[in-house]
C-alpha cells in the first residue's frame, strides 16, 4: 500500500505545498503548531479540496485536480481521529462507536467492539452522551469510533494528547497491533518524539506548509533538525534490529544490531521479530575505559565519528558502534575532561531500562 | 367529501346575514328534507370565488355592486336575480350621549363629534360605509367630517368602536345597532339620502342543483320574512 500526496492549498496567508509518499505502517507527521499537519490530514480525508494536487491511495486516484477527480469523503473509507473529538452529541457513546459500522459492507464482529471498549476503558460510559464525558473520555471514544469503522487508512491527529500516561501505555501497543497484524496504514500527527519513535516507520517533518525533511524514522529522528518540532531533549537515534533472545526469568529482550547487541527490559516478544529501539542522546554516557560493576547492561564499544557542539553547554558526539550509529549528548565540561576527539575509541553506556520498549 | 355536499344546496351569503339566514335555511331543511350549507364571508370574496368556479348555487350579496359584477360576467341566471332585503343606516352614539340627533341637511355633526371620530365601515370598501358617505354628502355634511372618519373593516367593527367609546358616534346598519346594548340609535338617515340599501339574491349560472330554486323561493317567501324582520331588515317583495 502506498499513498502519494501532492497538494497546494491556500488558507488565508498560509500556503501549503507538500508532496510526500507514505507506505505501509505508520507515517508520522511532525511539525510545530500551525505548520500545516491538520491541513494535510484534511486533504487526505477529503475535507479540504486542494487548489492543485493529486492523491493516490494504492493505485486508486482520490484527487486529481487536473482531471477534475475528487472522491467524496464517505467513499474514501479513511478513519479520522480529529484533534477535537467531534463526537455526535445526540448519540450515546455506544451509538457513536457503532456509527461507522452501519456504513460498512464488512462490519467488524461485535467482539471487536467489546475488545476496543475494554482497551479504551470506556465500558461504564456506553449509555452516556458525550456532553457528560470528561476530556480524556471524549478522546478515547473518538479513537474507538474511528477504529471501529473498518478504515483502509487511519488518520490520527494528536490522538493521545489528552490521555494520561498509563492509558497511553495501554493504547500504544494496540496501535502497533493494528499496524503490524491488521496491516492498517496510519498517518499519525504527534508532538511526542517517543510516541513517534515507537510507532512510526516514516517521519515527515513539516515546517511552515512545506516538507522540511522526510524519510525512514530511524534517519529522520537521528537528525538534529528534528528539534524544530521536538524538544531538544528528545534527540537521539532510532536503531533497527532483530530479537535474538528472550530471558523470561529476568524479562530481558536481547536485540541484535549490526555487529553488537543490546538488552531491553520488556515482555515476551517473538524471537526473530524486527524491532526498533529509540536511544535518546541524553541517555548515553561515554567512557574512555570499559566501565566495571555498573548496573547498566549495555556497554557498546565504538569510535567517535563526529563531534558537534551547540551553545547550550552540551556537545553531541556521534559514535559508530560496529555499524550502529549512536548519538550521545554530554556536557562541554565532560567533553573537555575526557579530551574526546573524532576517531577516538569510546564506550557508550546505555541504561537498559532507558530504552523505549517495543 | 364533495360527493355528498354536491347534493346539498350551497349558499354564498354576505356575512351580515348569518343570524337570520341560518334560521331560515333550518326551517326549509326541516320542511323539505333537503339539505343546505351556507358560506358566510365578505361579498367581495364570495363574488371572486364564484368567478373562480366555486360550487355555489345561490349568492346573496350585501350590495348591488358585487351582484352586478357577476351579472356582467354572465355568472348568474339573470331572471333569478331579485332584490331580497333592504336595510337602513342609522347614527349611533355611545351610551353616555344618548340625546337624539335630528338628521337633516347640514346638521352639525362636527360639533357633535367634538374632536372625536366618526366610526363607520370603510367608505371605499364596506357597503355600509359607502351608503353612509353618500348620505352625508347628500346632507352636505361630508366635507366637514371627511377627515374625521374612522373607516372600519366591517360594520361590526365600527359598532365596536362606538360601544367601546373610541368614537363618540358612528354610522351602521340598523340591523347591527339593534343588538348592541353599548350603543344608542340617535337618528336614522332619511331613505332618500342614499342609494337604496339592497341585498340582492340570485341563482348562479353554473348551479345544477334542482333544489336551489326551491330554497330561493323559500327565502323570498312570507314564511322567511319574519326571521329577517326580526333582525331589522326590510323584506322587499
Amino acid at each position, binding site marked *: 500500500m502506498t499513498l502519494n500526496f501532492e497538494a497546494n492549498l491556500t488558507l488565508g496567508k498560509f500556503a501549503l505545498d507538500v508532496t510526500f509518499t507514505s507506505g505501509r505502517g505508520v507515517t508520522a507527521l511532525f511539525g510545530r503548531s500551525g505548520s500545516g499537519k491538520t491541513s494535510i490530514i484534511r486533504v487526505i480525508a477529503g475535507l479540504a479540496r486542494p487548489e492543485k494536487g493529486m492523491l493516490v491511495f494504492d493505485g486508486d486516484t482520490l484527487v486529481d485536480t487536473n482531471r477534475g477527480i475528487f472522491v467524496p469523503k464517505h467513499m474514501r473509507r479513511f478513519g479520522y481521529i*480529529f484533534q477535537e473529538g*467531534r463526537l455526535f452529541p445526540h448519540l450515546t457513546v455506544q451509538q457513536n462507536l457503532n456509527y461507522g459500522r*452501519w456504513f460498512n459492507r464488512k462490519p467488524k464482529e461485535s467482539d471487536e467492539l467489546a475488545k476496543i471498549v475494554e482497551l479504551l476503558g470506556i465500558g461504564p460510559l456506553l449509555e452516556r*452522551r458525550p456532553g457528560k464525558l470528561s476530556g480524556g473520555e471524549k478522546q478515547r471514544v473518538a479513537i474507538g469510533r474511528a477504529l471501529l469503522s473498518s478504515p483502509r487508512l487511519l488518520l490520527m491527529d494528536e490522538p493521545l494528547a489528552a490521555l494520561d500516561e498509563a492509558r497511553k501505555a495501554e493504547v500504544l501497543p494496540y496501535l502497533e497491533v493494528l499496524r503490524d497484524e491488521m496491516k492498517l496504514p496510519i498517518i499519525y500527527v504527534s508532538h511526542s518524539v517517543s510516541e513517534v519513535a515507537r510507532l512510526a516507520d516514516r517521519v515527515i517533518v513539516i515546517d511552515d506548509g512545506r516538507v522540511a525533511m522526510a524519510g525512514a524514522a530511524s534517519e529522520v529522528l537521528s537528525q538534529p533538525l528534528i528539534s524544530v518540532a521536538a524538544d531538544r531533549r528528545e534527540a537521539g537515534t532510532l536503531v533497527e534490529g532483530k530479537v535474538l533472545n528472550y530471558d523470561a526469568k529476568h524479562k530481558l529482550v536481547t536485540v541484535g544490531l549490526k555487529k553488537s547487541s543490546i538488552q531491553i527490559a520488556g515482555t515476551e516478544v517473538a524471537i526473530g521479530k524486527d524491532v526498533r529501539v529509540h536511544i535518546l542522546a541524553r541517555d548515553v554516557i561515554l567512557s574512555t575505559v570499559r566501565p566495571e560493576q555498573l548496573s547498566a547492561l549495555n556497554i557498546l564499544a565504538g569510535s567517535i565519528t563526529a563531534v558537534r557542539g551547540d551553545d547550550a553547554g552540551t556537545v553531541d558526539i556521534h559514535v559508530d558502534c560496529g555499524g550502529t550509529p549512536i548519538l550521545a549528548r554530554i556536557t562541554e565540561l565532560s567533553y573537555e575532561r575526557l579530551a574526546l576527539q573524532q576517531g577516538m575509541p569510546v564506550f557508550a553506556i546505555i541504561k537498559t531500562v532507558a530504552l523505549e520498549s517495543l | 367529501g364533495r360527493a355528498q355536499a354536491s347534493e346539498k344546496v350551497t349558499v354564498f351569503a354576505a356575512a351580515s346575514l348569518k343570524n337570520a339566514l341560518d334560521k331560515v335555511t333550518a326551517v326549509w331543511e326541516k320542511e323539505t328534507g333537503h339539505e343546505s*350549507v351556507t358560506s*358566510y364571508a365578505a361579498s367581495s*370574496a*364570495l363574488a371572486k370565488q364564484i368567478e373562480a368556479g366555486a360550487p355555489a348555487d345561490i349568492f346573496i350579496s350585501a350590495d348591488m355592486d358585487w351582484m352586478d359584477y357577476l351579472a356582467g360576467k354572465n355568472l348568474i341566471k339573470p331572471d333569478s336575480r331579485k332584490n331580497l332585503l333592504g336595510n337602513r343606516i342609522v347614527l349611533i352614539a355611545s351610551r353616555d350621549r344618548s340625546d337624539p340627533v335630528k338628521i337633516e341637511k347640514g346638521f352639525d355633526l362636527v360639533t357633535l363629534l367634538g374632536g372625536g371620530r366618526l366610526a363607520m365601515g370603510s367608505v371605499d370598501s364596506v357597503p355600509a360605509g359607502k351608503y353612509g358617505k353618500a348620505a352625508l354628502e347628500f346632507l352636505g355634511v361630508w366635507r366637514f367630517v371627511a377627515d374625521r372618519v374612522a373607516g372600519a373593516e366591517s360594520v*361590526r367593527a365600527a359598532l365596536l368602536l362606538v360601544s367601546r367609546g373610541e368614537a363618540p358616534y358612528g354610522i351602521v346598519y340598523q340591523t347591527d345597532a339593534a343588538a348592541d346594548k353599548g350603543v344608542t340609535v340617535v337618528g336614522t338617515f332619511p331613505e332618500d339620502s342614499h342609494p337604496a340599501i339592497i341585498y340582492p339574491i340570485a341563482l348562479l349560472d353554473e348551479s345544477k342543483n334542482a333544489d336551489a330554486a326551491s330554497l330561493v323561493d323559500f327565502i323570498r317567501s312570507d314564511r322567511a320574512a319574519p326571521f329577517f324582520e326580526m333582525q331589522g331588515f326590510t323584506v322587499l317583495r
Partner: protein
Amino acid sequence: MSWFSLTNDEWTAVHLSLRIASVAMLASLPLGILVALLLARGRFWGKSLLNGLVHLPLILPPVVTGFMLLLLFGRRGPIGTLLADQFGIILSFRWTGAALACGVMGFPLMVRSIRLSIEAVDRGLEDAAGTLGASPMWVFATVTLPLILPGIIAGMILSFAKAMGEFGATITFVSNIPGETQTLSSAIYSFLQVPGGDAAAFRLTIVSVIISMAALLASEFMAYYVGRRVDVE
C-alpha cells in the same frame, strides 16, 4: 344547552381545524426542510428569489394570498387545472384547499425556524460522519436532522398555531363552507360579523386557544426531551 357545550357545526369546525392544521403542518414539513436547507446551505442563482417567494405570504395581506391561491389553484387556475386533469386532485372549496392555504401561510415561519437551526449546526460533525462512511443523505438523516430537531419542532408549532389562527387566506381561497372548509377561525369570524355573535365567537376562541395551548405544551415537552438528550454539560 350549557354555556360551553358546542353545537354540531362547531364540533365539525373543531375537527376540521385540527385536521387542517395538522395536515398543513405535516405536509409542508418536507418541503419546509428542503427549502430551509437550500436557503441555509445552497449557493445558487435565484436564492434571493426563492427566499423572497417563501416570505411572500407573510408580506402580503392574507386576503391577497388567498386571491392568489384562488387564481393559481382554483378550478380555472393553471395549477388547479393541471392538478385536476393530471392527478384528479381538486383543492378549491375542499378542506384540502384550506390546508394548502394554512400551509402556505405558515410556510415562512416554518422555514425560518428550520433554517436558523441548520445554520447553527456544527459542520465539523457532518464532516466526521462523512469520514465514517456516511453518504450525504445518511449524514443528513443521522446527524443534521437530529441536531436541527429543535428548529423543526419550533417550525411545526409555529405552522400549526398559524393554521389555527389563519382565516384571511383560507376564507378567500376556499370560502367558509361548514363541514368542508369552515375552520374554527372562520367560524369565529362569521360570528363576529353579526349582532350578538360575540358570545359564540368567544366560546370558539377559547376552544381554539385550548387546542393550540395543548399543542404548544406538547411541543415544548418534545423540545425539552430532545434538548435534554443533546445537552452539553
